[in-house]
């Protein structure tokens, strides 16, 4: 499945770029991420727990950052093996556009699943992938801007642990 969208982040483009390379930002942004280690240069190792329809699994996999063209664009790809549940993999092509001190983040996401996930989840996989991407970029945005005005839904909070970190924790950290 494929989807494209964009969102405007209230932060300068360089800061957004830095955030995209930050292990902790990624850990907090990837929904269901339990562990994240590694570096932008060597790639990250991640453990993600997710439930797709009736299939709940722990995915162990790698996240790599490629095609890096600072501070304009990069490709984030990840693939995870979920044992008997099958596998999931996907990528996002991200492009950053400066807009008067704000940054417009464009993304084209592609996601694939295999094995039991495809057999049981094909009917819901498009919706699931869209939800994952939305959550990722919402979490990402919040790391820079702080939580949105409206209450984030429960699963977003679950993934991003936003409760503990108010008002754009990444921004505060890099600004201090």
């Amino acid at each position: 499945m494929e989807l494209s969208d964009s969102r405007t982040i209230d932060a300068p483009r360089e800061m957004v770029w830095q955030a995209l390379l930050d292990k902790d930002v990624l850990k907090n942004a990837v929904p269901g991420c339990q562990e994240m280690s590694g570096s932008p240069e060597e790639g990250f190792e991640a453990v993600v727990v997710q439930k797709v329809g009736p299939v709940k699994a722990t995915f162990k996999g790698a996240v790599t950052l490629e095609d890096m063209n600072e501070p304009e664009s990069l490709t984030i790809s990840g693939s995870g093996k979920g044992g008997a549940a099958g596998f999931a993999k996907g990528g996002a092509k991200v492009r950053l556009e400066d807009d008067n001190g704000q940054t417009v983040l464009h993304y084209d996401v592609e996601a694939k699943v295999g094995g039991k996930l495809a057999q049981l989840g094909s009917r819901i996989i498009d919706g699931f992938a869209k939800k994952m991407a939305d959550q990722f970029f919402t979490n990402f945005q919040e790391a820079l801007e702080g939580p949105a005005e409206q209450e984030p839904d429960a699963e977003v909070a679950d993934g991003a642990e936003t409760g503990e970190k108010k008002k754009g924790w990444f921004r505060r950290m890099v600004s201090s």
Partner: protein
Amino acid sequence: MPKDGGIGSPTLRREDIRFLTGNGKYTDDINIHGQAYAYFVRSDVAHGTINSIDASAAEGMPGVAKVFTAKDFEGVGGVPCGWQVTDRFGEAMQEPKHPVLAEGKVRHVGDPIAVVVADTLEQARDAAEALDIDITELEPVLNMKDALKDGATKVHDDLTSNLCYDWGFVEENREAVDEAIKGAHHVTTLELTNNRLVANPMEPRVAVGDYDSSNDEHTLYTTSQNPHVIRLLMGAFVLGIPEHKLRVVAPDVGGGFGAKIYHYAEEAFCTFAAKALKRPVKWTSSRSEAFMSDAHGRDHVTKIELAMDKDGKFLALRTDTHANMGAYLSTFAPSIPTWLHGTLMAGNYTTPLIYVNVKAVFTNTVPVDAYRGAGRPEATFQLERVVDKAAREMGIDPVELRRRNFITEFPYATPVAVEYDTGDYHATMDKLLELSDHAGFDARAAESKKNGKLRGFGIAHYIEACGIAPSNLVGQLGARAGLYESATVRVNATGSISVMTGSHSHGQGHETSFAQVVSEMIGIDASQIDIVHGDTAKSPMGMGTYGSRSLAVGGSAMVRATEKIINKAKKIAAHLLEAAEGDIELKDGAFTVAGTDKSVAWGDVTLAAYVPHNYPLEDIEPGLEETAFYDPANFTYPSGAYGCEVEVDPETGKVTVLGFTAADDFGNIVNPMIVEGQVHGGLAQGIGQAMIENCAYDDQGQLLSGSYMDYAMPRADDLPMFTVDHSSVTPCTHNPLGVKGCGEAGAIGSPPALVNAVIDALQRGGHDVTHIDMPLSSDRVWAAMNS
């Protein structure tokens, strides 16, 4: 009045008592002390290179006996294919190796890579999670036409291409057919897909392997339609175990529909592992595994052309089919799109020139093989669809067009190498029109129109070829097996009888209908007769049950063996009655001397055979047990006219099947109730294919319809009440019972009737729709109406 026993009686099925009270004994009910459990680790990609398998962590997990991979099977053969097709250039088909566990590459989602055997299934599954399997994904081969292009990725690197064979039939007719089509008054052309199906028997596959080291004997309990065939294939070709050291038992089996004919890797695995581990090994398929490891059915893409003269007389027929073999050749896969498909293309019609071309293609999908009907539904669907389209194009009523071309003289040799012995197609058509109230259709259509609905009526007339035979012919056609059947009739001292048949019952009711035949022949109550099947240690070598062959071939073997019993019993009776053997008559379970009141009961004769005090020992041996092998002279050719009435909601495209009528000619009928049930089941599966069933892969070769959430099985509310008739009888001329076979007819004749009905409804509603591919989901119908 129906008889209350014997041939022709609607005797209640004796096996239903155990099935309906939960006392059936299926393979999964077999648990042997000390057994271990096998869990298959299967590929979750369609095509890939196996770089490494690290089982060290898994082997250290609790309860794990061993992790098996391809290297454990280096010394054994691959899973064999039982039929070699010769292509139109005289060359043998391309036949890839089919390892028990994937070697080097995985070739479809579900391809087994490794097996964990542990004390419990849970332990095996846990350990499977600890296996580290590194696979590099390769581009999957999915579309059959793309697969044949130059430079296409190959499913099997050691083959020259993805083409299994390019088959022409009858090759000598090719040019004449082309000429006839060129010069014809009218040619109707249709391109269509016969959708891929998953058989989905209620009972998934199970295998239990057992090994007795004290006498080096192997036993395999398995969900099979033909245990002797499994013994031969697995023993001779895979594991090298001679038959006398290998027993295969297929106990109660909960439905087969073709998917349980084949020898599967899991059977060989459990047999092999039981010896390797010195303990019984059991595997029970989950439903998810069944979707990606049971052989699938159909999956043909066809272009068919029918040439006619100005009166609608069929002049020539040409077909061009791509048949999906999947990733490996399942046991009988090559024969389905060829000898079970091309030979049926004459249908019920006198078309003098026919040419069938079939290209069988390897793809990264589950292997495809016979599914209820096997080749004949594919033939019937395209033929009956193109005839219907031709009727519209020629402005001739579809019933009339069929009648103009019906074969009326028998025996009839078709241009596709078979000879129909009997049939009366006008009779079945007449019966259909009567039972479906065809005359009243226009009034019903008008009523539907008032309600804003489109009503349509569709007809299909099918020919079937059952009981594939004779063995010397099928050998010439490439079968690596004979197609006879066997029976041993063992009469016990007190007169009761055990019949050991090589046929296998997995829902067909043989225990009832076979007993009716012997009961009729001898004149004793059917309760005195047991039908024993499904165990190679009990029955003589038999070929099992598929292709609607059991009564026609297995029943005939049983008749022959029973005739031998009767002949011998008459000799004994003649001795006891002090009369000439030629004067002895058997009636109602007693032997009498013709024209006298001297008689001796069946039980007295059988007792004399086993307690031969007063017995002609100088002329005949004691005992009363006979075996017969029956190899038919020809196929049998059931036929029938099917009619389907539908209503289409033009707002939504939803199709409602209002009525379905089946007027069949099955030859003589042994148990009309069982026949009716068989037709009902076949119709349900045919309507399922036409309306809702579809096996779908995505563009990566992922199986999307891998559960009942996405693969729709027909339920009672998807089906109308059926009107079933089999009063048109032209008995088979070459088997002793005059029977033809009824198991697959419903699934063969119903899909074209249903699609024809929907097209009829749309045409009547003013929509210029000439074809919609199955399944006829609402969105496909709506899209066709609004395109």
